[in-house]
């Protein structure tokens, strides 16, 4: 009876295959387990299928083989029934004709929640990302960093249990990106949702994540998983600096072997 004691992972992929209608095989045998409360970073060479994996988990693109479950449900059922897991895109993807508050409230609106329930949730989400003052602004009045904060608030407004982030702050400058990462980690430490985040910066991955997964290309599958068991915060010039760099070096080696032989 030992087996039943094991916590069931929130995201479970077994031998996952995904072939686009165009014939491109983006995922070929992905095995992945994400436990509740983990903050997992996903790295890999461009085009290896990271975004595809995330979109498959989100139920946005159908997989073509193997199994994929979110809390024991198919991605599509999970999306319909769990109502409020969240997806953060690389671009802020705000609707320019809506005020920030109305952009942040969009998920609740689409899910059919009444306005009386929406308003406090929106206010809380905006406060969490430090945008309370910008509620009535339009997106074109915000800086790039503030737009991304609004996008993050929109993801948090449903109080998600699973947060999927596809290179979320990739369009920002170094400083803005670090600030948003700090905000993200602070929110995660407080609320302990489960995060799966694509990034192309190994240092960012090691600094943020509880675990880093390395994907390889041709075929798209996971080639390594590295637990990052370091105290936080993890500044490079702190006592953990050497350990952080050692992890980055290890990831670099894995990535080197992940590149397809040419």
């Amino acid at each position, binding site marked *: 009876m030992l087996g039943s004691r094991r916590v069931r992972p929130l995201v479970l992929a077994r031998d996952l295959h995904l072939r686009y209608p165009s014939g491109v095989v983006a995922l070929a045998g992905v095995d992945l387990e994400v436990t509740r409360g983990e903050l997992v970073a996903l790295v890999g060479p461009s085009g290896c299928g990271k975004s595809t994996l995330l979109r498959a988990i989100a139920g*946005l693109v159908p997989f073509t083989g193997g199994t994929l479950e979110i809390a024991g449900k198919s991605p599509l059922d999970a999306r319909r029934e769990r109502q409020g897991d969240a997806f953060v895109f690389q671009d802020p993807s705000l609707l320019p004709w809506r005020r920030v508050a109305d952009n942040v409230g969009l998920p609740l609106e689409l899910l059919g929640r009444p306005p009386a329930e929406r308003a406090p949730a929106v206010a809380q989400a905006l406060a969490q990302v430090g945008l309370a003052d910008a509620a009535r602004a339009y997106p074109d009045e915000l800086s790039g960093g503030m737009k991304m904060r609004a996008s993050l608030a929109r993801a948090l407004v449903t109080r998600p249990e699973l947060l999927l982030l596809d290179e979320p702050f990739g369009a920002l400058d170094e400083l803005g990106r670090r600030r948003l990462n700090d905000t993200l980690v602070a929110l995660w430490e407080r609320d302990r949702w489960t995060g799966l985040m694509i990034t192309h910066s190994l240092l960012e991955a090691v600094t943020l994540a509880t675990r880093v997964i390395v994907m390889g290309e041709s075929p798209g599958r996971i080639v390594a998983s590295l637990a990052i068991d370091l105290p936080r915060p993890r500044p490079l010039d702190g006592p953990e600096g050497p350990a952080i760099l050692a992890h980055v070096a290890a990831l670099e080696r894995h990535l080197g072997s992940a590149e397809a032989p040419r």
Partner: protein
Amino acid sequence: MSPLGRAAGVVGPPIALFAVVVLLWELLCVALELPPYLVPSPIAVARAGIEHADTIAWSTLLTAAGALAGLGASLVLGSLVALAFANSRWIARAFYPYAIFLQTVPVVAIAPLIVIWFGTGFASVALVALIVSLFPVISAATTGLTRVDPQLLDLFTFYGASRWQIMLKLRLPGSIPHVVSGARIASGLAVIGAIVGEFFAGYGADEYGLGYLIIVTSGQLRTDYLFAAILASTLLGLATFGAVSLIGAAVLRRWRSREIER
């Protein structure tokens, strides 16, 4: 620079060029002793314009009414057709070739047919203006409704948005910049359409517009009068285009959108 100074910077050069051309034209007419029925001098044109000011003004108003009626109809009809196209691939495939037909059919060829079917007068003039200006609206609105940021589509899908919600909250508002730019192109065409319509449909009608005036004055070799009518047509086209552009800019501001470059 002050707004007045900026306005002067925009309209100053073309007005100066106009003055130079008119001066040269006058000098050439005098120097070469051109017969006035071939090329009337600017002074003769101005004299004819003042002498027939009432008729020209009334004709301009009538043509403007025909053009605006046609333009309004093509905005409504074009948007409805685009909605149908965007909602059904089948309808789009079946009807799109005929929409292109609208653009390629020479209006001079079908205007007589319209007179046979609908008689002379305002309705036929507006109908020709509608036919000529419809395609840009259909094409721009269809593009606006179907070309949506895939990330936004993912976002709406992720939160379980219905087709109806996607249409109402994403596609329709997102298509506004396209419709505005389509309307601007259509506005110039509608004036041309109204004038061409009057070439045919103005005959025998109780009221006649610039197109009819152009036909009559050219038939009588009253070239100075003809030039005045042509000038009025040009100004009407410019004024319509300018008015639609101004309204379009206001709409774009309201929707916080940018002009679509085409």
